[in-house]
């Protein structure tokens, strides 16, 4: 049993931290957020130059072949800076999917270099975190396939060059297609989301795709990629929670009322202690999620990940809300980063299945023994 990071992992953490502090400060992020695209190609290229986009790409495709613990370390360090670029979507989830599809490996090399972005378009209205919920249809049309359906709240869709679209074939199985963004019949309705990133409704109407667009991936492969993404999301949340906790404790030490720092008041001390306990439990479960998210035992994997999301969803809500509460009026302001952490934590609770969805999944998996 060993909870320490390797020397390489510590270096990775340091690299990401330094980049975020120096090149992705909060004011700079605000400028990027308010830009037309809502993300920065320059920052994306910088992440590529640091090797971070190659982290999850296997070595045989020019990547670093890192494992989920490395991803955890990176996401943890990226978290507090509230990156607006599609790191999780492209460099973690889409990469995890593509690396199981050797015929599209070339794309991964471009992604690692920062030359193109791929994003999974999977969720649909009504899915509520159920990875098997796919109503988008796929029918043979001559030698091609025709796709019809709608994908909802697809993060970073407009930033992507490729969408990886899930659809249900006539035999009922889930199939995945690699779809260029400029494909006729594919249209986006873009909008900002509460955490400052962009997303879109993706409409697929009579989209025609050749057989070569079809990924050699089934529901299992999709599930594995989503699990890796979920573990990475947990790590991001833990990074943000730590930052929010530290900032709150710092505020309690410095803010003076009634002639003393407000951190002297027991009601606030106990709230801060509760935040710390939530954080520690969340960190433990994020570690478990990273260690189990690539486990071949699907039951063990899904059980650990659902338990992790429940713990992290709860902690994210509590820490986010209390960070705002303990900052008082300042916590409500757009000016301070604390409200932005709260917003991202709120978004995280709703992503990849919310707490109740995972609680239910945990119950169902636990019952199959």
């Amino acid at each position: 049993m060993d909870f320490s990071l390797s020397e390489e992992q510590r270096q990775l953490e340091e690299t990401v931290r330094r980049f975020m502090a120096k090149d992705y400060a909060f004011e700079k992020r605000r400028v990027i957020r308010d830009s037309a695209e809502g993300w920065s190609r320059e920052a994306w290229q910088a992440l590529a130059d640091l090797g971070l986009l190659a982290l999850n790409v296997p070595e045989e495709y020019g990547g670093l072949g890192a494992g989920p613990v490395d991803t955890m370390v990176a996401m943890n360090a990226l978290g507090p800076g509230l990156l607006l670029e599609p790191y999780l979507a492209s460099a973690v989830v889409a990469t995890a999917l593509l690396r199981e599809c050797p015929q599209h490996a070339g794309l991964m090399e471009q992604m690692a270099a920062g030359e193109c972005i791929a994003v999974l378009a999977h969720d649909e209205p009504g899915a509520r975190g159920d990875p098997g919920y796919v109503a988008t249809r796929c029918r043979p049309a001559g030698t091609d396939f025709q796709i019809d359906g709608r994908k909802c709240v697809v993060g970073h869709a407009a930033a992507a060059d490729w969408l990886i679209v899930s659809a249900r074939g006539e035999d009922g199985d889930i199939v995945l297609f690699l779809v260029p963004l400029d494909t006729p019949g594919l249209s986006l309705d873009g909008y900002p989301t509460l955490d400052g990133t962009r997303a879109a409704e993706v409409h697929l109407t009579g989209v025609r795709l050749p057989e070569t667009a079809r990924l050699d991936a089934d529901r299992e492969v999709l599930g594995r990629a989503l699990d890796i993404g979920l573990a990475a999301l947990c790590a991001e949340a833990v990074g943000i929670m730590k930052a929010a906790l530290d900032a709150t404790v710092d505020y309690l030490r410095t803010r003076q009322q009634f002639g003393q720092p407000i951190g002297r008041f027991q009601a606030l001390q106990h709230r801060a202690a509760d935040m710390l306990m939530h954080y520690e439990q969340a960190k433990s479960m994020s570690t478990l999620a990273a260690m189990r998210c690539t486990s071949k035992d699907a039951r063990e994997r899904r059980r650990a990940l659902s338990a992790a999301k429940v713990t992290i969803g709860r902690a994210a809500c509590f820490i986010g809300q209390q960070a705002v509460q303990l900052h008082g009026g300042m916590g409500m302001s757009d000016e301070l980063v604390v409200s932005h952490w709260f917003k991202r934590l709120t978004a995280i609770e709703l992503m990849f299945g919310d707490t109740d969805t995972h609680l239910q999944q945990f119950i169902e998996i636990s019952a199959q023994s």
Partner: protein
Amino acid sequence: MNLDFTDAENAFREEVRAFVREKLPVAIRDKVSRGLHLTRGEHLQWQRLLYERGGWSGPGWPKAFGGPGWSPVEQYIFEEECALGGAPRLIPFGMKMVAPVIMAFGNATQQARFLPKILAAEEWWCQGYSEPGAGSDLASLRTRAVRKEGRHIVNGQKTWTTLGQHADWIFCLVRTDPEAKAQRGISFLLIDMKSPGITVRPIITLDGAHEVNEIWFEDVEVPAAHLVGEENKGWTCAKFLLSHERSNIAGIGIAKRELARLKHIAAAETKRGRPLIEDPLFAARLAEIEIDLMALEITNLRVLSAEAEKRAPGPEASILKIKGTELQQAISELILQAVGPYALPFAGAAPGPAHAANRAAQYLNLRKLSIYGGSNEIQKNIVAQMILEL
């Protein structure tokens, strides 16, 4: 990073498991599983079996004092396996509380006189800390010891003394300098419970049990040789004791055992014609507890591995105490709910299913967990002040 135990640790776990399976008397296991109080003899019987195995009765003891010299992880595994195997919790007052103080602050004579009998379960110890006016504010204690002709004359009252009715010895914090402020004038005394002037009176708790006592001291004479450390420096011992051996304080093994019991009961009980465990609201509450326990287990292991690196339990143990006691209480509460109306028959009456007997008493009894050993509110003060530095 690696969450798995080493092969050696797994082999050790097997060794402990086999020992508990073979040696734990069936009658004791049965009482523990029903949440009943053990007799003095039963506690000592189990401790002696552990002692004979090679000092296992002192899991945290170094080899120099006859203990097994286990690492924090081995101690954790040992306690977990004992709990899972249905063994009673070791009575901590001798083994885990006074013994480490005597090892750290006692002189060679005291070590030779007291430690072997603690390890061999020949003498039963109890703790003389709390007083009617000194609970969370322990330093306000008023039991006085006046030095007179090579002895301390002790007068005062201790309370909430757990299993004091069985004890041969009591370790006490007493005020030796009434002029000094709070912590400064306190000394750490070892007192023979057979000393003239000691009266033990039972306190019956809400579950109907006699587990705690008041202890009165009237001109009790204590030889000077039974002062541990320096006079008026007893608070150092008290603080050491409070921070010692707390890395297993979460009680993960006990929580796992009780959670298994809860599932067993919930599978046997029915609601609307279906097993209770399938009821969505019940299942959600059960799952929340189970997930909390998964998280706490890893948090506990993280604290252990930090402890192994820097050899300091630290204030992180307060987190384990709070979360661990909350969990055990939550499990006992859900057991009560699972049992339903048959939890109402009390005081030995058990007209319902066997698993219903005594569950209410156990639920009531476990409310103590968040009060003793530094209430959970005091633990939060420690977390806020020592970890968060507020």
